[in-house]
């Protein structure tokens, strides 16, 4: 199974304390500086929608958001353009982009360090139902890819994979990953490259 349109969502610490409004000027400033590898285009504000996409930085090749879907707040990377180089590369590319976004958000003065990856909870989705239908066969087909990827990412730590959306075939195929210890984005980036 060829993975495309990979999404990662890195859940944040103390989500109830994260202010979303300051994200709007932050994302606009990212467009101003074109600070990420994708072409950044616009900002969409959906704070008025409960358990929704939150604040979205629209890009050509990918969207970044601080997303509250399922009432689980996290920094989400949604890859729209195709990625060459196989499944491990698709996973690595999306994870790297997610972690870099987390680093940047943590460093934003206007957010006062309130928006930080919790260090151990990551959600993965494939935003394409035809390529990756939400069923057992997809899970089986991707199992070895997940094992290889997350073993490397959480090097030196146990981790558990869960499929919380498995009973709801209408949802995107997704996996929830929890490591037994916390990691900083910098550590995870180092593991990705190691």
């Amino acid at each position, binding site marked *: 199974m*060829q993975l*495309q*349109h990979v999404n990662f969502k890195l859940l944040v610490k103390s989500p109830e304390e994260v202010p979303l409004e300051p994200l*709007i*000027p932050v994302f*606009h400033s990212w*467009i*101003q500086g*074109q600070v990420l590898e994708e*072409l950044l*285009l*616009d*900002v*969409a*504000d*959906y*704070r*008025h*929608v*409960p*358990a*929704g*996409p939150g604040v*979205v930085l*629209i890009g*050509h090749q990918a*969207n970044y*958001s601080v*997303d509250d*879907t*399922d009432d689980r707040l996290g920094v989400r990377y949604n890859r*729209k*353009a*195709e990625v060459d180089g196989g499944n491990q590369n698709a996973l690595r590319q999306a994870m790297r982009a997610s972690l870099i976004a987390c680093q940047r958000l943590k460093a934003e003065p206007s957010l006062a360090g309130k928006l930080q990856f919790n260090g151990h909870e990551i959600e993965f989705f494939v*935003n*394409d*139902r*035809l*390529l990756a239908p939400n069923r057992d066969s997809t899970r089986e087909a991707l199992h070895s890819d997940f094992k290889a990827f997350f073993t490397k990412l959480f090097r030196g730590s146990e981790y558990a994979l869960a499929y919380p959306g498995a009973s709801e075939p*209408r*949802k*995107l195929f997704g996996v929830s990953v929890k490591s037994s210890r916390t990691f900083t984005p910098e550590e995870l980036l180092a593991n990705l490259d190691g």
Partner: protein
Amino acid sequence: MKASNSLWQKELAGKTPEALAREIDIYETEIALRKQGKVEERLFAETRLRRGVYGQRYDNGQRHDGKKVQEMAYPSGTLTKGPSTMWDAPGMQRIKIPAGGLNADQLETLAELAEEYSDGIAHVTTRQDFQLHYVHIEDTPTIMRRLAAAHITTREACGNSVRNVTACPYAGVCADEVFDVTPYARALSKFLLGHPDCQNFGRKFKPSFSGCGQHACGLASMHDLGLIARERSENGERKIGFEMHVGGGLGAVPYQAKLFDSFIPPEELLPLAQAIARVFARLGEKKNRSRARIKFLIQDLGIEKFRELVLEERKTLPPDPRWTEYIESATAAFEAPLKPAGKAPLSGSAEFQRWLKTNIRPQKQAGYAVVTIALPLGDITADQLRALADIARQFTKETMRTTVEQNIVLRWISQDDLAAVWQALRAAGLADPSAETILDIVTCPGTDTCKLGISSSRGLAAELRKRLAEKNAQLDEAVQHLHIKISGCFNSCGQHHVSDLGFYGVSRKMAGYAVPHFQVVLGGEWNNNGGSYGMPVMAVPSKHIPEVVTRLVDRYSTGRKNGEAFKDFIKRMGKAELKNLLEDLARPPADPADRTIFTDWGDPREYSLEDMGVGECAGEVVSAIDFDLADAEREVFEAQVALENGQADRAGKLAYQAMVRAARGLVKLEDPNISQDSDQVIGEFRTRFYDTQKFFDPFAGGKFAHYLFAAQQRSQQPHTADSARYLIDEAHLFVEAAHSCYQRMGKPVAV
């Protein structure tokens, strides 16, 4: 953009209606031709618009980032999908929902599309459509295929065409209606969709149906064609029909529709609409888009002359069985409840009671209610759409409608189930107790995504919702039922003219800088189908609008006389007093260092309109023959592809079909009623263009016409690879000759 795009066609083969599947295949070919530079951008723009594929802000490749205008470096470079519209720039897909009617499967499809191709949100519009934003043009054929599999079309959702036919969302269940207009709205929608008489308008054409004259739900008075259910007695027998209005519309200068006929019987509904379409296509303005809506034609002609022309046209129409074949079944009830009738709940939490008060409307069928789901700014998430699909299946026979107030209603809820429905909606974040209150603010997309937006209507709406919600409980009962409607510009997509408190975006200069403003429009009437329009008072900086609202509602709370409606209160106050009340808010802040007003709501960038594009609302004025010739070219292209794939016979037939189509396009210039029959087309072509030598090339004479005549002679014979190849070459030359002929004839006579 999606890796799966190429797989969906096969996946959905046999699951989409054949006609829709073919249309989408054609559109996909047009995309390929545009990428190869074989379709010119103006024509391609109208082609996609007529399939609901609309431009979006910054698609001219420029965006003001608050400091300077950035050129967006799109990967496809200078390739465009319309004049000044970059190929890769995200766009909007509008999805037509006739009369707002939806079932659960369709909600689930919309959920999937919102997630996979947009940003996770589906947006309900003020004309009962859905819109998906930030969509890539190359994903649109797949979106259309997946919609078609759910029996939804995007055809003619934009462009100079008949737009979504809207109708009262309470039709069939409202105690005040004369009769259920839904079957008539659906019949008109189906009849006019792709109708040849509706392909040559200078601007869009919007029909609407209302079940009564007194409520707002259908807004018949502000539509190009407004139909209100009526009944009368003839020889003691009850007859139903429609009060027909024409030429209404909002826009910069709102027009109340004119009465065309106080009573037309159902069997005249479709033919009269067709005759109106023909008169509009023939006489409506084509060059000056700002005067191309039918309201201007009616203003210029006068309603009496317009009526006379339409009735004359009506006499010339060839009979069509579709005019009446639906009528017999139209009067039968087509919706039914899932559950037995129940009793209204008498107890429950304060929150539940509040929801009952604002979001529930009893049906005319005892024991049932309509539940309104108030969507903030018309937005709903993919998960919410799926939850709503489940609720619709659990409690109803999937009887849902979108509304012109950007909400969704669930019909046929047994009153016994109201508490359970509330619990289920609450779990999905869909039980906001604000329907049809001052919190239920209607807004167009404005500067968030619209190319024409001047001020941030959504940003303002979100801010007003937040502030009003904080003090909602303390608001006077009369204030709670006021309407707020906001448009990002004067084009009135937010319907500000028919609101108690209306606002539309304008730009003003202060201290040498552009400042986002809203023009304040007060005292419009929502009831009586949008019965009267509000009074413009003054323009106020966007950031001061919340204070405008506060002052107005406070004054209304304390100053109104017994039961005085807001519009009467505004009329009594008068413009001078209103100006006194608000004048200081129109001024810049006293402190020159205060830069608040130089940004808009929800957007921290210093305000600028330097990056504004050209609107596509009107589309490009492209005549019917432009489309015919483009279709002929596409068929020649498809013939070539078929030949390359070893399908010689199919290739030959496509080439012949292309020639006939081009010939028919020319004939249609003189005879709009020309049939589809190829022999008749060629006969007419011979009489009108060959015998008269109009088709003759200055150098080649009638040579290219002979290609067509010869092809007709052998049209029943199978093709070999050679014969198909020759015919493709001849078809190519014939279509080119048709282009030349058309150019020699000058600009087209409107059909």
